[in-house]
C-alpha cells in the first residue's frame, strides 16, 4: 500500500531505473569437515596483535589442554601479525605455514 508520500497523479512521470551495484565475484568456499574431538589435534593460533589476543590465547590454551589430551598449539608468533604492516605477505603464506606446522585447526582473533 502506498503512503501519502508515494501517491501520485496519473500525470506524474515514472522512471525505470537500473541496479547501482556490480557483479559479485565471490566464490563459494569449500569448507573443511567439522571436528568434534580435539584430542591429539594441532591448533594454529592466528592473531592480529589487537585487543589482548595474547591473553586470550593463554587462557584458551589452558582450558583446551585440560579437556583434550595430546592437543598441541602453534603459537601466533610463528605466523606473524595477520593485520599488521605485512598483512598481505603473512596471510599469503598462511596455507604453506599451516601445512608446515601440521595444523588441523585454526583459532583466529581478535575481531573487535
Amino acid at each position: 500500500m502506498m503512503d501519502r508520500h508515494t501517491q501520485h497523479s496519473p500525470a506524474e512521470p515514472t522512471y525505470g531505473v537500473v541496479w547501482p551495484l556490480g557483479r559479485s565475484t565471490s566464490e563459494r568456499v569449500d569448507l573443511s569437515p567439522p571436528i568434534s574431538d580435539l584430542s591429539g589435534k594441532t591448533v594454529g593460533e592466528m592473531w592480529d596483535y589487537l585487543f589482548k589476543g595474547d591473553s586470550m590465547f593463554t587462557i584458551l590454551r589452558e582450558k583446551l589442554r585440560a579437556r583434550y589430551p595430546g592437543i598441541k598449539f602453534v603459537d601466533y608468533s610463528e605466523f606473524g601479525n595477520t593485520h599488521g604492516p605485512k598483512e598481505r605477505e603473512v596471510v599469503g603464506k598462511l596455507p604453506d605455514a599451516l601445512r608446515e606446522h601440521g595444523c588441523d585447526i585454526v583459532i583466529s582473533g581478535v575481531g573487535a
Partner: protein
Amino acid sequence: MRASIVAEKAGVRSVSLVASGFVKQARAIAQALGVQDLAIAEYPGVIMTDKEADFQRKIEAMADQVVEGLAAPVRAAPRKTEPGPRDIVFTGTLDGVHEFFLKNLWTDGLPVVPPTVERVEEFLRFTDRSPDDVLGVLLPEKREATVWNVAVNGVMAGCRPEYMPILIAAVEAISTPEFRIEDGGSTPGWEPLIILNGPIARELDFNSGQGAMRVGRQANTSIGRFLRLYWRNVAGLRIPPGATDKGTIALSFNVVLAENEEAVAEAGWQPFSVDRGFRAGDNVVTVQSMVSISSPIYCGGDKPEELARTLAEVFGRDTCGYWSFTGMRDQWFPLLVMSPSIAKALARGGWTKANLQRYLYDNAKIPAGMAERYAWQTGLTHFSIKRLVEDGTLPKEFHESDDPNRLVRVFMHPEWTGIVIAGDPDRNQCRGYVNNHKQGPPVSRKVELPARWTQLLKERRK
C-alpha cells in the same frame, strides 16, 4: 576473520574470536566471501573497557564456543541471482524510486536522481572506455567496479555527465590493492578525500577558493557524494541496518578538494600533483583517507619559522600527535591544506614545501608514553615503541631511554606530509587532515578525457 577464511580454503577447520558488536559484520563479510556459517566464538561486550576479572571469565566461557564452533556443520553460502547492469529493477514515480532505493540500502539517505538507462548513457558519452570495462574488484563484497556502475552512481549523486572522467579516475584509485578499501568499514570511521589538480578544475567550475571544503558547489559536492555512494553500493560498506561499516562515530563525505594552482604558481611552488609524480598541467585525481580534521589554524608573522611554529604545534603535536602511533608502525600520510597567503608568506621567506615538511618533521613531537597509551587504548595492546626499535621499524632515536616523557617525532618522514593550497586567499588559515595510516594511503590517477572532450563540453553548454 579473513585469516579464518584463508584457513578454510586451505582445508583447515577454523573458529574466529569476535567481540559481540562485530559478529554481524563478521558474518556479513564471511558470507560475501562465500562462507555461510563461519564458526565464531563471541566475546560479550567491549574488550578494552572490561575489568580484568570479567575478561578472564568471558574468555574461559568462550572455550566452550570454540569447541562447539569446530564441531558444527558448516554450509557454503548459497548463490544469489542478481540483476544485470541494464535490467530495470524498478519502475515508479520519483518518490517511489526514493523509497525503493532506501529500502534496499542503495542510497546515502538522501534522495537520488533516478538512474535511468538514458541518463547513464549520457554519462557514458564522456568516456571512450567500454561500459563493461572492469576497473577493479572492491572488497568486502567483492563486486566489480565497472565504467557502467560508475555512471549509474554518478547519476544518482547528482553529478553532471562531464564529471565522468573524474569519477572513473577516483574509482580506479580506490580499486588499487594498496588503497585497501576492504578496511573502509573499520572503527575509526575514515572517509575518502578526493584531491583534484589540473586545468579541469577550472574548466568544470570547481571551487578551490573561499569555502573550498563546504558543500555548495555542484562539482565539488556531487563528486564527493558520488564516492560515498559508490562506497556503499559497490564496495558494500553500509552502516546499520547494514552490517559491514563499523565506523564507531564516523565521518560523512568530503567535497572534492581542488587545489588553487594559480596561487601555487604565485608562490613559486609546485602543485600537489607534481609532488605525486605527475607533470604540471596534468589533470590528476588523488584519493586518500581522512579520519579527522584539525581546528582552523591561523598562522601570522612574516618569518617562516613564526608561521611554521604554530603548524608544528597545532597540526603536528595536537592534531596528528594522537594518531602518530599509527605512523610509527606503518605508512601514514597527513595532509595540510593551506590558504594562499600563508604559502606566499613562506615562499617570500625562501621556503619551499620541502622546507616546511622538514620543519614539521623536526619540531612536532609528543611524549613516547602518551603515544603508547593512545595505541593501547585503541586496541593495539601489543604496541611498544621499544619493540618497534628492536625490530628495525623505528630508528634508535625513538628509544634512547625508558623515560615515558621523552619526546618522539610525530611525523616519521618529512615527505609523508602532503601540502595542498586552497581556501580563502584573503585569510591566513590552514587545516590539517589526518590520514588513517595504511588504510587509504594517497593513490593518484591521471584523468583520461575522451577524444571529443572539447566538442562534448560545447554541446553540453548550448
